[in-house]
């Protein structure tokens, strides 16, 4: 039986030899590096082409949905009395055509709408809904005007 020192000497000798790397290992690493590089360049190109060149508030202001929403909101606030009268007239006409009395809440709302402060409050309350509706409308218009989606970049 060998003594412990001799055992360890042999083990240490064997431990000090690293195995051979498989054949063409470096070639395969470099091929993967080249792939990674191409992928990185493609990602950079996509990021660059989609990079926001302007501040968010400039892009938001230039967005067609924002323009449409703000135009509708401005119209609502500017001609609220006209719109309210038109709405009341349309509602009255509808009710008389259907030969039913107008519901009490609607009558009260119609009377209140003729006052300036109520109109402003109603306008402000409706503003988010108008903006959201305009944005969805604009999205729908964009989708319908672009029949095919652009192919994803690889």
């Amino acid at each position, binding site marked *: 039986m060998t003594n412990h020192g001799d055992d360890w000497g042999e083990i240490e000798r064997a431990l000090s030899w690293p195995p*051979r790397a498989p054949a063409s*290992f470096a070639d395969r690493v*470099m091929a993967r*590096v080249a792939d990674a590089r191409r992928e*990185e360049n493609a990602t950079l190109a996509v990021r660059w082409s989609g990079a926001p060149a302007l501040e968010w508030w400039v892009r938001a202001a230039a967005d067609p949905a924002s323009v449409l929403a703000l135009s509708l909101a401005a119209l609502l606030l500017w001609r609220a009395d006209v719109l309210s009268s038109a709405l009341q007239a349309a509602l009255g006409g509808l009710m008389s055509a259907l030969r039913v009395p107008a519901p009490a809440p609607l009558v009260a709302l119609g009377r209140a709408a003729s006052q300036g402060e109520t109109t402003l409050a109603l306008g402000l309350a409706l503003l988010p809904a108008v903006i959201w509706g305009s944005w969805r409308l604009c999205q729908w218009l964009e989708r319908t005007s672009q029949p095919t989606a652009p192919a994803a970049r690889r």
Partner: protein
Amino acid sequence: MKPEDEERPSNPVSRGHASPERREEHEWIERARSGDERAFRMLVERHQARAYGLALRILRNAAEAEDAAQEAFVRAWRGLSEFRGEAGFSTWLYRIVARQSFDRLGPLKRRRERETPIESVAEPANEADDPGARALTRRLERLMDVLNPVQRAAVTLYYWGDRSVEEVASALEIPENTVKTHLSRARAALREAWRRSEHDEPRG
């Protein structure tokens, strides 16, 4: 036996007394950082055997070890700009290899049935023509199964190229005292397994 408290400069290049080999490597790193793939290839060729060997010792599966080592090199390429030179390049690279390998251990355990026997791939690099050396290596690789993956990694790094405990700890991201414990237990387990194997199989 190697003294465990061996201290070596962590970055000889920056201290101005680097070996020509280290200086050459430093130059390759700088060139590779600026996108020179040839320089990076030099680094791969210098470290491929040990990077692969470390992955192989941890994973005990040739195909998985090759993939882990290759992926580690690709990550090293991508991360070269983050390499500050505080540790040696090899220590930094082995850290990536070790992470890659340890991350794969769990999934690999679940598909052990496809494992390639390690004896068919672990050839000694320097003494490949010496049948005695080859037999010794094969015997050692079989005995490596008595160690856990961290012990195998610690022993492997420590006995290759005079790595200090500090460097092994840095590569494996564990405290130095833990490395010392792993080394001590690994040595005892290997000695014991070596002696037992002498009774079971003929030497040489």
